[in-house]
């Protein structure tokens, strides 16, 4: 007899690829985005069913929350950009499309499909091969379980991420740091100026949710030591607070000193590197903490990384380095948000 949970899993397993297909096939960008947000939610449920609560938590925070906001804001920008482009390229750029003769179109299609199928087949073969290569008996799980006692934490995932394979996480944090640096070096944030009052409802929403997000971020970092959670999940929730502030466009965002943001961005990688250096200097391997102090080290690194990841993700959403200090902000604001975006098009 098939119980309800079995049907639940089947529905999930059928809905997920179908949703993914509709998402990719959707000609309408907006619909694709909404489908993507829904996919994030179903993904989180799927991770739960696959007994991977850490991933589900990250997916809930990033996939269903942050990326949705990021995409929805990007869509608006994209629409404006394409409008401006249309105006610029109004005079005779149309022929370019017609330069490829139609018979080559016809030949290109089967080739593209064939290549895609071939790649898919290779991928499936590789998957099957690696599945066959995996040793029976739960992979590395038992080995991790054996060593868990000296990792300093009770969560296996956190033990692997921050102790046994600490350097992987170090590199990941560095990659995020680099990404934020890249974005910051490109442009300065142009906070869209209020084109209308955000309204009391939104202001109150920010007032209620932002402190709660800070709390929950802290909670996720703390709980990462014993079960699902950790720096990435906490950082993502922290970033959500930043995104909410940026969205509501409160004057507060301007008042945050840029130096604070810079330090926040650097805190995690800096502390992580410092720990690595100290560990090596003390005669151990890279990131090999003394077992009795490991818990404290991990908590310290996790909290610092959560702050940095939060700032990084919020900075990626904002899309640039901090705006001008608010000294000239009273008189020096040029025009409404429209100008700022037109500026983006003109400056290349």
């Amino acid at each position: 007899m098939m119980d309800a949970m079995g049907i639940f899993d089947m529905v999930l397993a059928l809905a997920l690829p179908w949703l993914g297909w509709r998402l990719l096939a959707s000609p309408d960008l907006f619909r694709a985005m909404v489908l993507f947000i829904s996919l994030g939610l179903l993904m989180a449920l799927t991770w739960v069913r696959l007994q991977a609560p850490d991933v589900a938590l990250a997916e809930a925070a990033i996939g269903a929350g942050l990326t949705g906001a990021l995409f929805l804001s990007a869509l608006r920008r994209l629409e404006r950009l394409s409008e401006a482009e249309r105006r610029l390229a109004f005079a005779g750029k149309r022929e370019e499309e017609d330069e490829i003769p139609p018979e080559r179109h016809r030949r290109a299609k089967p080739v593209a499909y064939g290549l895609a199928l071939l790649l898919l087949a290779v991928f499936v073969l590789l998957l099957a091969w690696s599945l066959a290569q995996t040793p029976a008996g739960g992979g590395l799980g038992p080995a991790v379980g054996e060593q868990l006692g000296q990792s300093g934490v009770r969560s296996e995932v956190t033990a692997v991420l921050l102790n046994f394979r600490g350097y992987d996480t170090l590199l990941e944090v560095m990659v995020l740091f680099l990404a934020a640096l890249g974005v910051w070096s490109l442009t300065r944030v142009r906070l869209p100026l209020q084109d209308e009052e955000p309204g009391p409802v939104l202001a109150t929403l920010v007032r209620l949710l932002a402190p709660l997000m800070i709390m929950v971020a802290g909670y996720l970092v703390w709980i990462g030591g014993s079960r699902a959670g950790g720096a990435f999940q906490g950082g993502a929730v922290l970033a959500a607070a930043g995104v909410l502030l940026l969205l509501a466009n409160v004057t507060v965002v301007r008042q945050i000193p840029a130096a604070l943001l810079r330090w926040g961005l650097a805190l995690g990688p800096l502390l992580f590197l410092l720990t690595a250096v100290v560990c090596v200097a003390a005669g151990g391997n890279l990131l090999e903490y003394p077992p009795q102090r490991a818990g404290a080290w991990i908590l310290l690194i996790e909290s610092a990384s959560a702050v940095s990841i939060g700032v990084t993700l919020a900075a990626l959403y904002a899309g640039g380095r901090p705006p001008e200090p608010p000294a000239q902000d009273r008189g020096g604001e040029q025009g409404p948000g429209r100008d700022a975006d037109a500026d983006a098009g003109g400056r290349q």
Partner: protein
Amino acid sequence: MPGNCSPVSLPLATRLTRLLARLVLYAVLWSVLAGLDGRSWIIGLPAVSAAACCSLFFAPQRLCPLSPLGLLRFIPFFLNLSFWGGCDVMRRALSPVMPLNPGLVRYQVSLPEAPQQVLLLNCISLLPGTISADFSGQCLTIHTIDRDMPVWSTVHLLERRVAAVFGLRLAGGAP
């Protein structure tokens, strides 16, 4: 309101009380989240203080003290109305003929401060047959699912109850 973050003019004692109240509130919340494990305060203490500071930063300049009695009376009132709101929608959605007669209604809000107005706006969306669709000045636009419902009197009742939560009495009728 975050809009008017002008230099704070409240006396120091008031500011300290507000900060303390927030610290206590978020400390309780933290123990709800993390349980009673004493070590959790290693992270809890910074998180609670950060949240309290953040909340204080956004707090409105004017004080809107809550009235515990009003709040206590408001909760069952709200739950009851919200339940009937759900039942109303269920009836309309499941009925084969779909009895809908929607329209817009305007309402003049007399609550003075933003927190009270927001509580009203948010509750209206959970009441039977109404959602708050726009609000500017003191004029509230309500979308009603059935124009034959007594929208005005329901919202008026709700408004008086909301006022009571903040210890206010609106002119025109006892709460």
